[in-house]
């Protein structure tokens, strides 16, 4: 197991919710290198020219895979590919956070490409937290997540980027077979002069496939956000996309939802709402004893929970 300094340990807690070596399979990446790796009986973690490969054996249940990435060196730029092969009838959780601490003068950049191949009737929960800290130059994270789901599978993607990341370009795409379902929950907070773009594309190719996308974001100060979602229904299917954003100060938010029904039995819905915190919400919480700042914080934290 690798040695982590205090800052790196803090980042690990933020992005993966762990204090050290976890139970089960994992791969830890620190400053561009793998510094710890472990397979379990049912989950094999290995490398190939295509990147890091995680093979989950069929019928694996209740296991958690951790693949955190920590960058504490200024000026580091990396592109990482992780490939997840989930056998059929599995139920696994994958925790894949990335944190950057930059105290130098050059940008630190992590581009991560995560590809999921989810077998029949498997359930996958994927948690991705991004975190940036340090007084130095840019903390930049550009994740790409690609999902291919076999019949009857279920994938839940939870992404969270709350403060600290200066720039992000997030791309998520999914292709669903018959009876497959995907839930995508995105939480984003930008501040200062940060910018964030998130594009989610789901193709409901299979009969009775379902997609539910919910993005909640808060843009503070002079930050900018752009959210795009596109659901394509190619069969009898159901798709729902919801984008809610709170805009504050001099921030800018754009939401571009798009639906493409290519089958008469495709039921697709989108909702998008952008607005400032309602004055009555602040007044209500102040009438319960919170200061204005506490009321705003309570509303924002609740909204992003």
């Amino acid at each position, binding site marked *: 197991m690798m040695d982590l300094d205090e800052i790196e340990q803090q980042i690990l807690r933020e992005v993966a919710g762990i204090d050290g070596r976890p139970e089960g399979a994992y791969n830890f990446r620190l400053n561009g290198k793998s510094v710890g790796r472990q397979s379990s009986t049912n989950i094999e973690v290995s490398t190939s020219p295509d990147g890091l490969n995680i093979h989950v054996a069929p019928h694996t249940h209740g296991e958690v895979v951790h693949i955190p990435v920590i960058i504490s060196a200024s000026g580091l730029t990396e592109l990482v590919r992780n490939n997840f092969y989930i056998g059929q009838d599995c139920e696994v959780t994958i925790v894949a956070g990335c944190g950057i601490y930059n105290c130098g003068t050059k940008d630190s950049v992590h581009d991560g490409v995560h590809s999921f191949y989810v077998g029949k009737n498997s359930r996958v929960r994927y948690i991705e937290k991004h975190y940036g800290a340090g007084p130095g130059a840019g903390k930049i994270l550009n994740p790409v997540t690609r999902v291919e789901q076999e019949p009857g599978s279920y994938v839940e993607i939870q992404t969270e980027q709350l403060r600290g990341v200066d720039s992000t370009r997030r791309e998520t795409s999914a292709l669903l077979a018959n009876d497959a379902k995907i839930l995508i929950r995105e939480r984003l907070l930008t501040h200062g002069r940060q910018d964030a773009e998130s594009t989610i594309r789901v193709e409901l190719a299979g009969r009775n496939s379902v997609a539910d996308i919910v993005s*909640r974001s808060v843009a503070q100060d002079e930050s900018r956000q752009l959210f795009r979602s596109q659901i394509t229904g190619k069969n009898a299917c159901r798709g729902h996309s919801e984008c*809610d954003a709170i805009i504050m100060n001099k921030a800018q938010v754009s939401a571009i939802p798009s639906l493409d029904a290519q089958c008469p039995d495709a039921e697709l819905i989108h909702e998008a709402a952008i607005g400032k915190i*309602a004055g*009555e*919400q602040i*007044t*209500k*919480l*102040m*009438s*319960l*004893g*919170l*200061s*204005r700042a*506490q009321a705003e*914080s*309570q*509303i924002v*934290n*609740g*909204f*992003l*929970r």
Partner: protein
Amino acid sequence: MLDLQNIEFVVKNGAKRRAIIQDLSLSVKAGEFVAITGPNGSGKSSLARLIMGINRASAGKLIFNGQDITEKTITERAKLGIAYSFQQPVYFKGLSVRDLLQVAATAKETFLQDTGTDYEKLLATVGLSQDYLERQIDNSLSGGELKRVEIASVLARGAKLMVFDEPEAGIDIWSFARLTDVFRKLHKKPDCAVVVISHQKSILNIADRVVILKDGKIQAQGRPEDLKEELAL
């Protein structure tokens, strides 16, 4: 408890000025239950919001327990022991009923779990089951349910002065009967005063005093039984 002295509340619309409350003076004693009624536009809700500090008086003074609160903020008034129930409950996307009650009970953000308050009991008081604690305060709740949560949040404050702005608005008959019971119980607390803006006879009838507003002025006040003609009770 509360002493309103020569209160004026004027709203400006361009060059136009409209007096909503005019030279109004009113005292509420500890243990007293005061109902304020009057036609629409008479200034009832504006007066309630003035007491909480949501509206600021254009002239006059508000004294609460001997302290001049005229310039105090909403938060400061809340911390001094004034609570206010909104006529139109507020939606909060992302906050649960438990969150709201916890903020009300502790006057703190809900980062820490509060174990000292019996939220189930609070909800039962307004006729809601404990299942509602984890419900979101959004449009998944009916208007009546939201209103009951709103009232529960005021009860959770344990305030010295509770101001309710038309608690009957948007509430069903069954809940309203229960609400009247809540007011009866509050009435029995000697150290707590209640001000209710209402049109409902069943609420006006349990008040110690009814104040009738018209055009921002007190038209009449007295015991409900002495105002039968004015109130057409």
